[in-house]
């Protein structure tokens, strides 16, 4: 309990324009009465702009729920959430859709791409949906080329997802998330299905997009190595943020995680 209290105390408060996403007293519960399960319990969190944040925790800790709530994919039971200046909580489906389309990028663990579209079409899909012409506007086009270049896919743009390896597919997914220049990108175990080499590649791209392109990224993971690429790691347990770590390494994350396991088994 002492760690939980100190963790809440440790959470730094940023100026508003330094914050890409904010959660205040967010509670998410399923069911009612005796069957009530609390997935998130009065969570306060600020996601810093231009930084790479990892959310870690044992399974069932609520880390995925937190990400889904932050991204507006899931509703909250109590509390408020902002993406940039926009309050997410209370938005109708239409506004939520616009928010996801214009301000948020997603990278899922698997099945990120539409099998009927080729790599380039998948990358530009969010812009197509928004009705933005990918040919118009030199700035957009230059950005797109830069993104494609960054993830190293120039030779494979005409391929369908079925013709790409798992690592390549995730790189396309990263490129798609970057291409629309969203306020924030959410990754749900983006390397969970990849071998360690492809995983490292994808994490490298995420890192570079933060460092070189100034992107904000939030990633849920249970892999200490993946978390080691982040600027900051938030640790969740039983729906509460129990700790955080700045400039982590895989080893420091791993030893922190071991303490969870130790605490759990004790």
């Amino acid at each position, binding site marked *: 309990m002492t760690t939980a209290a100190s963790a809440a105390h440790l959470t730094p408060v940023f100026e508003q324009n330094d914050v890409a996403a904010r959660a205040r007293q967010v509670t998410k519960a399923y069911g009612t009465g005796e069957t009530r399960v609390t997935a998130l319990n009065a969570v306060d969190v600020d996601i810093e702009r231009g930084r790479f944040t990892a959310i870690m925790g044992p399974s069932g800790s609520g880390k995925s729920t937190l990400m889904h709530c932050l991204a507006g994919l899931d509703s909250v039971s109590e509390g408020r959430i902002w993406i940039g200046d926009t309050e997410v909580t209370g938005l109708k489906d*239409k506004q939520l859709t616009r928010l996801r389309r214009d301000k948020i990028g997603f990278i899922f663990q698997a099945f990120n791409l539409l099998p009927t*579209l080729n790599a380039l079409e998948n990358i530009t899909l969010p812009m197509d949906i928004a009705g933005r012409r990918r040919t118009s506007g030199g700035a957009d086009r230059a950005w797109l080329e830069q993104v494609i270049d960054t993830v190293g896919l120039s030779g494979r743009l005409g391929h369908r997802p079925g013709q790409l390896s798992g690592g390549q597919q995730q790189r396309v997914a990263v490129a798609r998330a970057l291409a629309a220049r969203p306020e924030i990108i959410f990754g749900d175990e983006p390397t969970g299905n990849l071998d360690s080499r492809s995983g490292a590649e994808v994490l490298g791209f995420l890192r570079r997009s933060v460092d070189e392109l100034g992107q904000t990224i939030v990633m849920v993971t249970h892999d200490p190595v993946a978390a080691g690429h982040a600027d900051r790691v938030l640790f969740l347990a039983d729906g509460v943020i129990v700790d955080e770590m700045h400039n982590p390494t895989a080893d420091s994350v791993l030893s922190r995680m071991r303490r969870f396991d130790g605490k759990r088994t004790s």
Partner: protein
Amino acid sequence: MLLKTSLRSFLAHKWRLVLSLLAVVLSVAFVAGTLVFYNTATSTFDRLFAATASDLSVRKAQDELTADSPGRASTVPVATQQKLAAEPGVEAAVGNVFSSSATLVDPATNKVVGPTSGAPTLTGNWTESPRKSVDITSGHQPQGADQLMLDADTAKKAGLGLGSRLRVIAESGTHDFTVSGIVTFRTTNPGAALAFLDTPTAQRVLLGTEAYTSVELFGDGSRSNDELKTAALADLGSGFDAKTAAEQQKENSAGVGSFLKFMKWAMLGFAFLSAAVGIFLIVNTFSMLVTQRTREIGLLRAIGGSRSQVNRSVLVEGLILGVIGSTIGIGAGLGLAVGMIQLMQATGMNLDSSSLQVTWTVPVVGYAVGLPVTLLAAFFPARRAARITPMAALLDHAAPAEPRANRIRAVLGLVVTGAGVAALALAAGSPGSTGGLLLGLGLLATLTGSVVLGPLLVSVLVRLLGGLLPALFGPAGRLAQRNVVRNPRRTGSTAAALMIGLAVVIGASVVTSSMVGSMTSQIDKSVGADYVVDGGHGALTPAMIDAARRTKGLDHLTEQRNVPAEVTLPDGGTLRTRLAVSNADFLRDFRLPVATGSAEAVFSGGGLSVGQDFADEHHVSVGDQFAVNYGEGRTQTLRVAAVIKTGNQLFDQRFFTDSDTVANAMNGQLPLTGVAFGTASAGADKAAVLADLQKSLAEYPQLVVKDQAGYKEMVKSQFDQLLAMVYGLLGLTIVVAVLGVVNTLALSVIERTREIGLLRAIGLSRRQLRRTVRLESVVIALFGALLGTALGLSWGVTARAVLSEQGLTVLTIPTGTVVTVLIGSVLVGLVAALVPAFRAARMNVLAAIATD
């Protein structure tokens, strides 16, 4: 074990099978309903005839040739009735007077009373016979020259009651009566109108002589009907004809039966067509289920399931669907039969829905339709399931794309379609029976070929029109376009179901509109007459002809009679036909296309015309002599005076001859006129003369009096009625096809749950998602409609060419129908997408992404 897996799987996917089940139910219900309806209708009539037939019915023996000539009812003398009444074993001998050629008219409205088509209007004498079909339910029997009794159904429909005035127009003239009583049918009313007079009045009005049309004998039970018959015929001598109750019943049933049988086969035909369409729907469902269960089946194989076990488990699932669908369908068929009986009641044929006849054939035929349909539909998906390897269990979720429409398909499809097109082309060049055979083959081959080629055509079409959808509809257009081609086989078979129904619709409408077009052009080309007066069911009496002739501004009126005759050809063969008998005025009303000889000679004493194809077939030429027999010993010799070109329905297969010549042979007793043609005097206002002509004949509302334009309109409306019936029956096929589109979309939406979740997560709005589903639906429907239209046009055009010698000289493409079909298919696509699009848009984004 096997059954258990199949049953479990069936139950697990029951919602995905709902539409397949519905398709089976609809087809089986239609088949079962038709059979039950047919059986019920036949048994109703059988009972009616059994209840009313006399033990022995005696008539004047008639030469077959004169039996059906209008206006010459043969009669039995009153003395014969008295003689028969005195026969031993006879309890009663009732003299009947009945005619079906009299017309009932309400003088207050001058409208025809009773059925105007189908069932007859029977006018006769009221007699006290032991077996009656009706009872007097109000008023009293007719007494005297101005009383008449009417059946309740007819009275109700015409708004008549006791004391109402009713007019009877018979060949003897027009007679007015007061309704003295109302009778009600004891059994089912077959839809006929019945009017009773007292016997002397009936004899005067209907026969013009004191006699009977038949004598009905009722035995006292001491002798069998056959014994009665033998005794009666022996007693009366030759010239009489007697029929026992059993013989009468057989004759009556045959008459009603032929109409019902035609209906039965037409409806069964359409039911089978919709069952065939249903196959496509079920194939799609099972294919998708197999695809979705690839991993599951792989696991089954990995733990030791054999190929044949997997194969059988899918087939058994099909069987379960067939059994359930057929069982529900048979039940629904009973409901449908009740519905049809109610529908028939609306048209005047009162059948009894409380005594449905469900024979053992109904379930047998029901299952015989439902089970093969589902088994056949499950066959190919089952084979594909059996080919799934154990490795599939280990692969990622991504279902293997179904094999692309392959080369074998292309070759096979092109060969079959090519053969079909060749057969159609050959058929178009060779009218007649070989053409008909080729047409049938071509029809079948092009249909099969189109079904086989469908999946390839989908890819080709979408490649050709590739840019159109995204350009018009943005990202939703692109997504829809890709979805259409991601599984060409599925799209192809969904569209094929729609194609079949629409091809028949378009083909039938090309043929019928060509019929109307040809008829119109033939009338334009060969008819000079301004007006036609048609007797309808009855004939034109001399009084009517006189009334018409008195019309001011009418130059002349040409009568045409149909005289039954047996013609003996020079080569020794004989031919039963009806001679078209008229006079020289006929040539002023019609331009006979004479090949050889002279048209004038045909109507100038002893002449006869024959058609070109008849002349060719029997090697007849101008100058040949024919022996003609009119029956009852009246014969004469006619000489071929002209050969008439074929290709005009008005003249084909007709034998024209002169009325004075025939009247000579028949001792002046020509049958009544069937139809008359009139021409306005030079300079007269044709419209005014038509109005006058109609006014002259106003007291005969049963007559059809039209000018050329009106006559063409009438011909067209008759074809339109036929076409409407065909469309109505095809409606079932199209309903099943639309269900197929809904089915494909609904299952696709389920299959693409994760994709939809992903799309929604990255910002596709509900509206865009719905639009994507709608566009896919419209593209499938439009694709089916285009194929169907192309197929239907090629069938229709070929059929027209094959029938060109049967009078279909002009090809008319019903552009209105084609445009309607295409626009309609867009609407069908939109309607079919309603529920699947709604469901797709309602999906919870998170749950959809998490779907396995």
